[in-house]
Protein backbone atom coordinates (compact mmCIF):
# COMPACT_ATOMS: atom_id res chain seq x y z
CA UNK A 1 0.00 0.00 0.00
CA UNK A 2 2.93 2.30 0.75
CA UNK A 3 6.51 1.52 -0.09
CA UNK A 4 9.88 3.16 -0.18
CA UNK A 5 12.45 1.87 -2.63
CA UNK A 6 16.17 2.56 -2.17
CA UNK A 7 15.40 5.71 -0.22
CA UNK A 8 18.43 7.86 0.44
CA UNK A 9 18.36 11.32 1.91
CA UNK A 10 21.38 13.53 2.38
CA UNK A 11 21.57 16.88 4.16
CA UNK A 12 24.74 18.45 2.81
CA UNK A 13 27.52 16.01 3.60
CA UNK A 14 25.47 14.11 6.13
CA UNK A 15 23.53 11.04 5.07
CA UNK A 16 20.42 10.71 7.21
CA UNK A 17 18.93 7.71 5.40
CA UNK A 18 20.92 5.36 3.22
CA UNK A 19 19.34 3.04 0.67
CA UNK A 20 16.32 1.95 2.69
CA UNK A 21 13.63 -0.17 1.08
CA UNK A 22 10.51 -1.54 2.72
CA UNK A 23 6.77 -1.55 2.37
CA UNK A 24 3.75 -1.47 4.60
CA UNK A 25 1.02 -3.67 3.27
CA UNK A 26 -2.73 -3.46 3.59
CA UNK A 27 -3.94 -4.56 7.06
CA UNK A 28 -0.44 -4.37 8.44
CA UNK A 29 1.27 -2.39 11.18
CA UNK A 30 5.00 -1.86 10.82
CA UNK A 31 6.95 -0.33 13.71
CA UNK A 32 10.01 1.68 12.88
CA UNK A 33 12.66 1.36 15.59
CA UNK A 34 15.99 3.08 15.85
CA UNK A 35 18.08 5.27 18.12
CA UNK A 36 17.86 9.06 18.01
CA UNK A 37 19.27 10.32 14.72
CA UNK A 38 18.71 6.97 13.02
CA UNK A 39 16.61 8.62 10.30
CA UNK A 40 13.13 7.58 11.46
CA UNK A 41 11.60 11.03 11.14
CA UNK A 42 13.28 11.56 7.77
CA UNK A 43 11.80 8.29 6.48
CA UNK A 44 8.39 9.21 7.85
CA UNK A 45 8.55 12.62 6.17
CA UNK A 46 9.61 11.09 2.86
CA UNK A 47 6.78 8.56 2.95
CA UNK A 48 4.26 11.27 3.88
CA UNK A 49 5.35 13.33 0.88
CA UNK A 50 6.73 16.18 2.97
CA UNK A 51 10.32 15.95 1.82
CA UNK A 52 11.79 14.40 -1.28
CA UNK A 53 14.40 11.65 -1.20
CA UNK A 54 17.81 12.50 -2.62
CA UNK A 55 17.44 9.24 -4.49
CA UNK A 56 14.94 6.43 -4.47
CA UNK A 57 11.18 6.53 -4.75
CA UNK A 58 7.97 6.29 -2.79
CA UNK A 59 4.91 4.51 -4.16
CA UNK A 60 1.52 5.01 -2.54
CA UNK A 61 -1.39 2.83 -3.63
CA UNK A 62 0.48 1.99 -6.80
CA UNK A 63 1.16 5.63 -7.71
CA UNK A 64 4.67 7.07 -7.74
CA UNK A 65 4.94 10.03 -5.36
CA UNK A 66 6.08 13.08 -7.32
CA UNK A 67 5.63 16.83 -7.11
CA UNK A 68 2.60 16.49 -9.36
CA UNK A 69 0.97 13.53 -7.60
CA UNK A 70 1.84 14.78 -4.11
CA UNK A 71 -1.37 16.72 -3.26
CA UNK A 72 -3.66 13.85 -4.30
CA UNK A 73 -1.54 11.21 -2.55
CA UNK A 74 -1.24 13.24 0.65
CA UNK A 75 -5.03 13.05 0.82
CA UNK A 76 -4.70 9.27 1.29
CA UNK A 77 -2.36 9.56 4.25
CA UNK A 78 -3.12 10.33 7.87
CA UNK A 79 0.04 11.93 9.19
CA UNK A 80 1.07 12.53 12.77
CA UNK A 81 4.26 14.55 13.19
CA UNK A 82 6.63 14.32 16.11
CA UNK A 83 5.11 17.45 17.69
CA UNK A 84 1.32 17.76 17.87
CA UNK A 85 1.46 21.07 15.99
CA UNK A 86 -1.89 22.49 17.10
CA UNK A 87 -2.80 26.13 16.65
CA UNK A 88 -2.65 27.33 20.23
CA UNK A 89 -5.20 30.12 20.01
CA UNK A 90 -7.82 27.87 18.42
CA UNK A 91 -9.99 25.51 20.42
CA UNK A 92 -9.85 21.74 20.04
CA UNK A 93 -12.96 21.79 17.85
CA UNK A 94 -11.69 24.69 15.76
CA UNK A 95 -8.38 22.94 15.15
CA UNK A 96 -10.21 19.86 13.92
CA UNK A 97 -12.76 21.82 11.89
CA UNK A 98 -10.08 23.78 10.02
CA UNK A 99 -8.36 20.51 9.08
CA UNK A 100 -11.69 18.98 8.05
CA UNK A 101 -12.14 21.98 5.76
CA UNK A 102 -8.57 21.67 4.46
CA UNK A 103 -9.46 18.15 3.36
CA UNK A 104 -12.68 19.45 1.85
CA UNK A 105 -14.86 17.37 4.16
CA UNK A 106 -18.48 18.37 4.53
CA UNK A 107 -19.62 19.84 7.82
CA UNK A 108 -22.86 17.89 7.77
CA UNK A 109 -21.51 14.38 8.15
CA UNK A 110 -20.43 14.98 11.75
CA UNK A 111 -16.91 13.65 11.30
CA UNK A 112 -15.50 16.12 13.82
CA UNK A 113 -18.18 15.14 16.33
CA UNK A 114 -17.39 11.45 15.86
CA UNK A 115 -13.68 11.94 16.46
CA UNK A 116 -14.28 14.23 19.41
CA UNK A 117 -16.35 11.45 20.94
CA UNK A 118 -13.94 8.69 19.93
CA UNK A 119 -11.04 10.40 21.66
CA UNK A 120 -13.20 11.47 24.61
CA UNK A 121 -12.52 15.12 23.86
CA UNK A 122 -16.10 16.33 24.35
CA UNK A 123 -15.41 18.12 27.66
CA UNK A 124 -12.36 19.79 26.12
CA UNK A 125 -13.66 20.73 22.69
CA UNK A 126 -14.12 24.40 23.59
CA UNK A 127 -10.72 24.63 25.28
CA UNK A 128 -7.90 26.41 23.47
CA UNK A 129 -5.07 24.13 22.47
CA UNK A 130 -2.58 26.19 24.48
CA UNK A 131 -4.33 25.10 27.65
CA UNK A 132 -4.17 21.36 26.94
CA UNK A 133 -1.81 18.87 28.56
CA UNK A 134 0.74 17.13 26.34
CA UNK A 135 -1.30 13.93 26.30
CA UNK A 136 -4.47 15.79 25.38
CA UNK A 137 -2.65 17.62 22.57
CA UNK A 138 -1.46 14.27 21.26
CA UNK A 139 -5.03 12.96 21.28
CA UNK A 140 -6.22 15.97 19.27
CA UNK A 141 -3.34 15.50 16.82
CA UNK A 142 -4.28 11.83 16.41
CA UNK A 143 -7.92 12.76 15.85
CA UNK A 144 -6.71 15.23 13.23
CA UNK A 145 -4.73 12.49 11.46
CA UNK A 146 -7.87 10.34 11.23
CA UNK A 147 -10.31 13.06 10.13
CA UNK A 148 -10.37 12.15 6.44
CA UNK A 149 -10.55 8.41 7.14
CA UNK A 150 -7.19 7.66 5.50
CA UNK A 151 -6.27 4.14 4.40
CA UNK A 152 -2.63 4.79 5.24
CA UNK A 153 -1.39 6.09 8.57
CA UNK A 154 2.13 7.42 9.02
CA UNK A 155 2.67 8.21 12.67
CA UNK A 156 5.74 9.59 14.40
CA UNK A 157 5.72 8.40 18.02
CA UNK A 158 1.93 8.36 18.37
CA UNK A 159 1.78 7.31 22.02
CA UNK A 160 4.52 9.65 23.20
CA UNK A 161 3.30 11.60 26.21
CA UNK A 162 0.12 9.58 26.61
CA UNK A 163 -0.70 7.95 29.92
CA UNK A 164 -0.82 4.13 29.83
CA UNK A 165 -4.61 3.98 29.72
CA UNK A 166 -4.89 6.33 26.75
CA UNK A 167 -1.88 4.74 25.04
CA UNK A 168 -3.63 1.39 25.26
CA UNK A 169 -6.83 2.83 23.81
CA UNK A 170 -4.80 4.32 20.97
CA UNK A 171 -3.14 0.96 20.25
CA UNK A 172 -6.58 -0.65 20.18
CA UNK A 173 -7.67 2.00 17.72
CA UNK A 174 -4.72 1.15 15.47
CA UNK A 175 -5.60 -2.52 15.67
CA UNK A 176 -9.17 -1.71 14.66
CA UNK A 177 -7.88 0.35 11.74
CA UNK A 178 -5.63 -2.51 10.72
CA UNK A 179 -8.68 -4.77 10.82
CA UNK A 180 -10.39 -2.36 8.46
CA UNK A 181 -7.55 -2.70 5.94
CA UNK A 182 -5.34 0.24 6.86
CA UNK A 183 -1.59 0.20 6.36
CA UNK A 184 0.05 1.74 9.43
CA UNK A 185 3.64 2.81 9.90
CA UNK A 186 4.53 3.76 13.46
CA UNK A 187 7.82 5.19 14.58
CA UNK A 188 8.46 4.49 18.24
CA UNK A 189 11.09 4.22 20.95
CA UNK A 190 8.80 1.95 22.93
CA UNK A 191 10.02 -1.60 22.25
CA UNK A 192 7.23 -3.17 24.23
CA UNK A 193 4.70 -1.27 22.17
CA UNK A 194 6.40 -2.27 18.94
CA UNK A 195 6.30 -5.90 19.93
CA UNK A 196 2.68 -5.87 21.02
CA UNK A 197 1.33 -3.75 18.20
CA UNK A 198 3.38 -4.41 15.10
CA UNK A 199 3.09 -7.23 12.61
CA UNK A 200 6.62 -6.42 11.54
CA UNK A 201 9.42 -4.42 13.10
CA UNK A 202 11.92 -2.46 11.06
CA UNK A 203 15.17 -1.62 12.83
CA UNK A 204 16.83 1.40 11.32
CA UNK A 205 20.17 3.04 11.81
CA UNK A 206 20.52 5.15 8.68
CA UNK A 207 20.32 1.84 6.82
CA UNK A 208 17.65 -0.76 7.34
CA UNK A 209 19.26 -3.28 9.68
CA UNK A 210 16.42 -5.76 9.86
CA UNK A 211 12.73 -6.05 9.12
CA UNK A 212 10.69 -9.01 10.22
CA UNK A 213 8.04 -10.14 12.65
CA UNK A 214 9.00 -9.67 16.30
CA UNK A 215 9.01 -13.46 16.76
CA UNK A 216 11.34 -14.01 13.80
CA UNK A 217 13.74 -11.33 14.97
CA UNK A 218 13.83 -12.93 18.38
CA UNK A 219 14.42 -16.37 16.91
CA UNK A 220 17.34 -15.05 14.89
CA UNK A 221 18.99 -13.86 18.09
CA UNK A 222 18.22 -16.96 20.18
CA UNK A 223 18.34 -19.55 17.44
CA UNK A 224 18.73 -22.99 19.02
CA UNK A 225 18.82 -21.76 22.61
CA UNK A 226 16.96 -24.29 24.77
CA UNK A 227 15.99 -23.97 28.42
CA UNK A 228 15.37 -27.15 30.45
CA UNK A 229 13.98 -26.81 33.96
CA UNK A 230 14.35 -29.89 36.16
CA UNK A 231 13.30 -30.84 39.68
CA UNK A 232 16.31 -30.56 41.98
CA UNK A 233 19.70 -29.31 40.87
CA UNK A 234 20.40 -28.89 37.18
CA UNK A 235 24.15 -29.26 37.73
CA UNK A 236 23.74 -33.07 37.97
CA UNK A 237 22.67 -33.13 34.31
CA UNK A 238 25.54 -31.06 32.99
CA UNK A 239 27.79 -33.94 31.94
CA UNK A 240 24.93 -35.58 30.06
CA UNK A 241 24.04 -32.49 28.07
CA UNK A 242 27.56 -31.29 27.28
CA UNK A 243 27.71 -33.71 24.41
CA UNK A 244 25.11 -31.49 22.77
CA UNK A 245 26.75 -28.21 23.75
CA UNK A 246 30.11 -27.96 25.54
CA UNK A 247 29.08 -24.49 26.79
CA UNK A 248 25.88 -25.71 28.44
CA UNK A 249 25.28 -23.97 31.76
CA UNK A 250 23.38 -24.86 34.90
CA UNK A 251 21.82 -22.35 37.24
CA UNK A 252 19.68 -23.74 40.06
CA UNK A 253 16.98 -25.80 38.41
CA UNK A 254 17.70 -24.45 34.95
CA UNK A 255 19.91 -25.79 32.20
CA UNK A 256 20.61 -23.55 29.24
CA UNK A 257 22.29 -24.74 26.06
CA UNK A 258 22.35 -24.27 22.31
CA UNK A 259 21.35 -26.96 19.86
CA UNK A 260 22.55 -26.81 16.26
CA UNK A 261 19.25 -28.29 15.03
CA UNK A 262 16.65 -27.83 17.79
CA UNK A 263 13.84 -29.71 16.02
CA UNK A 264 16.13 -32.73 15.47
CA UNK A 265 18.13 -32.67 18.71
CA UNK A 266 15.56 -31.78 21.37
CA UNK A 267 14.10 -35.33 21.76
CA UNK A 268 17.61 -36.74 22.23
CA UNK A 269 18.38 -34.02 24.77
CA UNK A 270 15.22 -34.85 26.74
CA UNK A 271 16.13 -38.57 26.71
CA UNK A 272 19.66 -37.79 27.96
CA UNK A 273 18.32 -35.72 30.86
CA UNK A 274 15.78 -38.37 31.80
CA UNK A 275 18.44 -41.11 31.63
CA UNK A 276 20.50 -39.40 34.35
CA UNK A 277 17.44 -39.58 36.59
CA UNK A 278 16.29 -35.99 36.41
CA UNK A 279 12.60 -35.09 36.41
CA UNK A 280 11.90 -32.61 33.65
CA UNK A 281 9.50 -29.82 34.59
CA UNK A 282 9.75 -27.74 31.43
CA UNK A 283 11.51 -27.66 28.06
CA UNK A 284 11.24 -24.53 25.97
CA UNK A 285 13.02 -22.45 23.40
CA UNK A 286 14.64 -19.42 25.01
CA UNK A 287 12.98 -16.11 24.13
CA UNK A 288 14.98 -12.94 24.30
CA UNK A 289 13.32 -9.69 25.31
CA UNK A 290 12.76 -7.35 22.37
CA UNK A 291 15.20 -4.95 23.99
CA UNK A 292 17.97 -7.56 23.72
CA UNK A 293 17.09 -8.21 20.09
CA UNK A 294 17.13 -4.51 19.31
CA UNK A 295 20.41 -3.84 21.09
CA UNK A 296 22.00 -6.90 19.49
CA UNK A 297 21.00 -5.73 16.02
CA UNK A 298 22.37 -2.25 16.65
CA UNK A 299 25.59 -3.65 18.10
CA UNK A 300 26.03 -5.95 15.11
CA UNK A 301 25.56 -2.94 12.85
CA UNK A 302 28.23 -1.00 14.79
CA UNK A 303 30.62 -3.95 14.49
CA UNK A 304 30.03 -4.05 10.73
CA UNK A 305 30.76 -0.35 10.47
CA UNK A 306 33.93 -0.64 12.56
CA UNK A 307 35.24 -3.47 10.40
CA UNK A 308 37.81 -2.23 7.87
Amino acid at each position, binding site marked *: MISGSHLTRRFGDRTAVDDVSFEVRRSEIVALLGPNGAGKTTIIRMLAGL*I*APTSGSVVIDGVLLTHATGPALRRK*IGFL*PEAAGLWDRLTVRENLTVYADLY*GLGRTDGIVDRLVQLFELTPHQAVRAAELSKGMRQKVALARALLHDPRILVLDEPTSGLDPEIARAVRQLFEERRGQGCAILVSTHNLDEAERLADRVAVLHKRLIAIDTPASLRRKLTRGRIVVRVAGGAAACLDAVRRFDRAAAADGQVLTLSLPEPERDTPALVRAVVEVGAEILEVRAETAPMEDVYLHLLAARSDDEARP
Partner: protein
Amino acid sequence: MISAPLAALLRKELLDLSRNRGALLPVAIVALVALLLPFGVTIAIPAMTGQHLGDDSDLLRVSAALGTHDGLSADGRVQLFLFQQFLMLFLLTPITGAMALAAHSVVGEKQARTLEPLLATPIGTIELLVAKVLGSLIPTLAIAMTGLVLHFVGLALLAEPGVLRAMVTPRTALLVFLVSPAAALLSLQSAIVVSSRVNDARTAQQFGVLLIIPLTAVLVAQFAGMLWLSARALALVGLGILAVWAVLTVVSAALFQRDAILTNWR
Protein backbone atom coordinates in the same frame (compact mmCIF):
# COMPACT_ATOMS: atom_id res chain seq x y z
CA MET B 1 -12.83 30.72 -7.20
CA ILE B 2 -11.59 30.31 -3.64
CA SER B 3 -10.74 26.66 -3.04
CA ALA B 4 -11.79 24.81 0.12
CA PRO B 5 -8.20 24.58 1.49
CA LEU B 6 -7.59 28.30 0.84
CA ALA B 7 -10.88 29.26 2.50
CA ALA B 8 -10.14 26.95 5.44
CA LEU B 9 -6.69 28.38 6.05
CA LEU B 10 -7.93 31.94 5.62
CA ARG B 11 -10.65 31.31 8.17
CA LYS B 12 -8.02 29.98 10.55
CA GLU B 13 -5.82 33.04 9.98
CA LEU B 14 -8.67 35.44 10.76
CA LEU B 15 -9.80 33.40 13.76
CA ASP B 16 -6.25 33.27 15.08
CA LEU B 17 -5.80 37.01 14.61
CA SER B 18 -9.11 37.76 16.29
CA ARG B 19 -7.75 35.97 19.38
CA ASN B 20 -4.49 37.92 19.18
CA ARG B 21 -5.75 41.47 19.00
CA GLY B 22 -2.46 42.79 20.36
CA ALA B 23 -0.94 41.90 16.99
CA LEU B 24 -3.33 44.34 15.30
CA LEU B 25 -2.61 47.14 17.75
CA PRO B 26 0.36 48.56 15.78
CA VAL B 27 -1.82 48.62 12.64
CA ALA B 28 -4.57 50.47 14.53
CA ILE B 29 -2.09 52.92 16.08
CA VAL B 30 -0.50 53.71 12.72
CA ALA B 31 -3.97 54.19 11.19
CA LEU B 32 -4.98 56.50 14.06
CA VAL B 33 -1.83 58.62 13.67
CA ALA B 34 -2.39 58.79 9.91
CA LEU B 35 -6.00 59.79 10.61
CA LEU B 36 -5.14 62.58 13.02
CA LEU B 37 -2.06 63.93 11.21
CA PRO B 38 -3.81 65.62 8.24
CA PHE B 39 -6.34 67.28 10.52
CA GLY B 40 -3.52 68.46 12.76
CA VAL B 41 -1.59 69.93 9.85
CA THR B 42 -4.49 71.43 7.90
CA ILE B 43 -6.94 72.42 10.61
CA ALA B 44 -5.41 72.42 14.13
CA ILE B 45 -2.03 74.11 13.50
CA PRO B 46 -3.41 76.97 11.35
CA ALA B 47 -6.15 77.50 13.95
CA MET B 48 -3.58 77.60 16.77
CA THR B 49 -1.12 79.88 14.97
CA GLY B 50 -3.75 82.10 13.38
CA GLN B 51 -2.09 81.72 9.95
CA HIS B 52 -4.17 80.84 6.92
CA LEU B 53 -2.98 78.09 4.58
CA GLY B 54 -4.15 80.17 1.64
CA ASP B 55 -1.65 82.87 2.56
CA ASP B 56 1.29 80.54 1.82
CA SER B 57 2.31 81.16 -1.78
CA ASP B 58 4.28 77.87 -2.00
CA LEU B 59 1.30 75.85 -0.90
CA LEU B 60 -0.95 77.71 -3.31
CA ARG B 61 1.52 77.02 -6.11
CA VAL B 62 1.79 73.25 -5.50
CA SER B 63 -1.95 72.94 -4.91
CA ALA B 64 -2.48 74.20 -8.45
CA ALA B 65 -1.63 70.65 -9.52
CA LEU B 66 -5.21 69.76 -8.58
CA GLY B 67 -6.57 72.04 -11.27
CA THR B 68 -9.09 74.77 -10.76
CA HIS B 69 -11.73 74.48 -8.11
CA ASP B 70 -13.74 77.64 -8.49
CA GLY B 71 -16.06 76.95 -5.60
CA LEU B 72 -13.22 76.70 -3.10
CA SER B 73 -11.54 79.43 -1.12
CA ALA B 74 -7.74 79.71 -1.15
CA ASP B 75 -7.68 77.92 2.21
CA GLY B 76 -10.01 75.31 0.80
CA ARG B 77 -7.77 74.68 -2.24
CA VAL B 78 -4.72 74.15 -0.06
CA GLN B 79 -6.74 71.95 2.31
CA LEU B 80 -7.96 69.90 -0.63
CA PHE B 81 -4.38 69.47 -1.88
CA LEU B 82 -3.10 68.43 1.52
CA PHE B 83 -6.00 66.08 2.22
CA GLN B 84 -5.48 64.46 -1.18
CA GLN B 85 -1.79 64.01 -0.41
CA PHE B 86 -2.49 62.69 3.06
CA LEU B 87 -5.05 60.26 1.64
CA MET B 88 -2.23 58.23 0.10
CA LEU B 89 -0.36 58.30 3.41
CA PHE B 90 -3.54 57.37 5.19
CA LEU B 91 -4.24 54.41 2.93
CA LEU B 92 -0.72 53.06 2.80
CA THR B 93 0.54 53.45 6.34
CA PRO B 94 -1.60 50.66 7.87
CA ILE B 95 0.29 48.32 5.53
CA THR B 96 3.48 49.12 7.41
CA GLY B 97 1.87 47.78 10.57
CA ALA B 98 0.62 44.69 8.76
CA MET B 99 4.11 43.91 7.48
CA ALA B 100 5.01 42.43 10.85
CA LEU B 101 1.97 40.15 10.68
CA ALA B 102 2.83 38.94 7.21
CA ALA B 103 6.54 38.62 7.91
CA HIS B 104 5.75 36.42 10.89
CA SER B 105 3.13 34.28 9.20
CA VAL B 106 5.17 31.42 7.69
CA VAL B 107 8.15 31.49 10.02
CA GLY B 108 5.70 31.71 12.92
CA GLU B 109 3.98 28.51 11.79
CA LYS B 110 7.34 26.83 11.54
CA GLN B 111 8.43 27.92 14.99
CA ALA B 112 5.12 26.82 16.51
CA ARG B 113 5.63 23.47 14.70
CA THR B 114 2.23 23.80 13.07
CA LEU B 115 3.61 23.96 9.54
CA GLU B 116 4.45 20.26 9.21
CA PRO B 117 0.90 18.91 9.70
CA LEU B 118 -0.40 21.72 7.51
CA LEU B 119 1.96 20.81 4.67
CA ALA B 120 0.88 17.18 4.99
CA THR B 121 -2.61 18.17 3.82
CA PRO B 122 -3.51 18.56 0.14
CA ILE B 123 -3.18 22.38 0.33
CA GLY B 124 -1.18 23.78 -2.58
CA THR B 125 1.66 26.23 -2.13
CA ILE B 126 -0.11 29.10 -3.89
CA GLU B 127 -3.25 28.47 -1.83
CA LEU B 128 -1.18 28.57 1.33
CA LEU B 129 0.61 31.77 0.36
CA VAL B 130 -2.55 33.55 -0.79
CA ALA B 131 -4.34 32.58 2.43
CA LYS B 132 -1.44 34.00 4.40
CA VAL B 133 -1.49 37.27 2.43
CA LEU B 134 -5.26 37.65 2.70
CA GLY B 135 -5.05 36.83 6.41
CA SER B 136 -2.93 39.95 6.89
CA LEU B 137 -4.62 42.06 4.23
CA ILE B 138 -8.27 41.72 5.23
CA PRO B 139 -7.92 43.02 8.81
CA THR B 140 -5.55 45.72 7.59
CA LEU B 141 -8.02 46.92 4.96
CA ALA B 142 -10.86 46.73 7.48
CA ILE B 143 -8.94 49.05 9.79
CA ALA B 144 -7.98 51.35 6.91
CA MET B 145 -11.57 51.53 5.64
CA THR B 146 -12.93 52.24 9.12
CA GLY B 147 -10.39 55.03 9.37
CA LEU B 148 -11.41 56.27 5.93
CA VAL B 149 -15.01 56.66 7.04
CA LEU B 150 -13.83 58.62 10.08
CA HIS B 151 -11.57 60.65 7.79
CA PHE B 152 -14.51 61.72 5.62
CA VAL B 153 -16.66 62.43 8.68
CA GLY B 154 -13.82 64.67 9.89
CA LEU B 155 -13.71 66.40 6.52
CA ALA B 156 -17.46 67.05 6.66
CA LEU B 157 -17.21 68.53 10.12
CA LEU B 158 -13.89 70.40 10.07
CA ALA B 159 -12.73 71.21 6.54
CA GLU B 160 -13.60 74.32 4.52
CA PRO B 161 -16.96 74.12 2.74
CA GLY B 162 -16.75 72.20 -0.53
CA VAL B 163 -13.56 70.29 0.34
CA LEU B 164 -15.41 67.06 1.12
CA ARG B 165 -17.34 67.21 -2.15
CA ALA B 166 -14.14 67.97 -4.07
CA MET B 167 -12.46 64.96 -2.45
CA VAL B 168 -15.05 62.55 -3.85
CA THR B 169 -13.53 61.98 -7.28
CA PRO B 170 -12.65 59.03 -9.52
CA ARG B 171 -9.03 59.61 -8.45
CA THR B 172 -9.95 59.14 -4.79
CA ALA B 173 -12.00 56.06 -5.64
CA LEU B 174 -9.04 54.61 -7.54
CA LEU B 175 -6.74 55.28 -4.63
CA VAL B 176 -9.13 53.71 -2.13
CA PHE B 177 -10.36 50.73 -4.08
CA LEU B 178 -7.50 49.88 -6.43
CA VAL B 179 -4.11 51.36 -5.67
CA SER B 180 -4.22 50.96 -1.92
CA PRO B 181 -5.37 47.29 -1.86
CA ALA B 182 -2.99 46.47 -4.73
CA ALA B 183 -0.04 48.09 -2.95
CA ALA B 184 -1.02 46.28 0.22
CA LEU B 185 -1.19 42.95 -1.62
CA LEU B 186 2.22 43.49 -3.18
CA SER B 187 3.86 44.60 0.05
CA LEU B 188 2.38 41.80 2.10
CA GLN B 189 3.23 39.22 -0.55
CA SER B 190 6.84 40.46 -0.42
CA ALA B 191 6.78 40.06 3.34
CA ILE B 192 5.46 36.50 2.95
CA VAL B 193 8.32 35.71 0.56
CA VAL B 194 10.73 36.98 3.20
CA SER B 195 8.91 34.95 5.84
CA SER B 196 9.30 31.76 3.85
CA ARG B 197 13.01 32.33 3.22
CA VAL B 198 14.39 33.28 6.61
CA ASN B 199 15.01 31.18 9.68
CA ASP B 200 13.45 33.14 12.50
CA ALA B 201 10.73 35.67 13.14
CA ARG B 202 13.08 38.50 14.14
CA THR B 203 14.97 38.29 10.85
CA ALA B 204 11.65 38.26 9.00
CA GLN B 205 10.57 41.43 10.78
CA GLN B 206 13.87 43.16 10.08
CA PHE B 207 13.52 42.41 6.38
CA GLY B 208 9.85 43.42 6.58
CA VAL B 209 10.91 46.86 7.75
CA LEU B 210 13.08 47.22 4.64
CA LEU B 211 10.00 46.70 2.47
CA ILE B 212 8.52 49.91 3.87
CA ILE B 213 11.24 51.97 2.19
CA PRO B 214 9.62 52.03 -1.29
CA LEU B 215 6.30 53.11 0.23
CA THR B 216 8.04 55.88 2.17
CA ALA B 217 9.81 57.03 -0.99
CA VAL B 218 6.47 57.36 -2.81
CA LEU B 219 4.99 59.38 0.03
CA VAL B 220 8.00 61.69 0.36
CA ALA B 221 8.06 62.33 -3.41
CA GLN B 222 4.39 63.15 -3.32
CA PHE B 223 4.68 65.65 -0.48
CA ALA B 224 7.65 67.29 -2.13
CA GLY B 225 5.43 67.97 -5.12
CA MET B 226 7.59 65.68 -7.28
CA LEU B 227 4.84 63.16 -7.80
CA TRP B 228 1.29 63.86 -8.78
CA LEU B 229 -0.57 61.08 -10.46
CA SER B 230 -3.70 61.70 -12.46
CA ALA B 231 -6.68 59.33 -12.24
CA ARG B 232 -5.62 57.63 -15.46
CA ALA B 233 -2.06 57.26 -14.22
CA LEU B 234 -3.32 55.91 -10.90
CA ALA B 235 -5.45 53.33 -12.70
CA LEU B 236 -2.43 52.18 -14.68
CA VAL B 237 -0.28 52.11 -11.55
CA GLY B 238 -2.93 50.08 -9.72
CA LEU B 239 -3.25 47.55 -12.52
CA GLY B 240 0.53 47.41 -12.85
CA ILE B 241 0.90 46.68 -9.15
CA LEU B 242 -1.71 43.90 -9.40
CA ALA B 243 0.17 42.37 -12.33
CA VAL B 244 3.43 42.49 -10.38
CA TRP B 245 1.63 40.92 -7.43
CA ALA B 246 0.38 38.06 -9.60
CA VAL B 247 3.91 37.44 -10.87
CA LEU B 248 5.34 37.70 -7.37
CA THR B 249 2.79 35.15 -6.13
CA VAL B 250 3.98 32.64 -8.70
CA VAL B 251 7.61 33.46 -7.93
CA SER B 252 7.01 33.15 -4.19
CA ALA B 253 5.41 29.73 -4.75
CA ALA B 254 8.58 28.66 -6.57
CA LEU B 255 10.72 30.07 -3.77
CA PHE B 256 8.63 28.31 -1.13
CA GLN B 257 10.49 25.03 -0.85
CA ARG B 258 8.59 22.80 1.52
CA ASP B 259 11.52 20.46 1.79
CA ALA B 260 14.04 23.15 2.77
CA ILE B 261 11.60 24.84 5.13
CA LEU B 262 11.00 21.63 7.05
CA THR B 263 14.57 20.42 7.14
CA ASN B 264 16.78 23.52 7.29
CA TRP B 265 14.94 25.62 9.80
CA ARG B 266 15.60 25.28 13.50
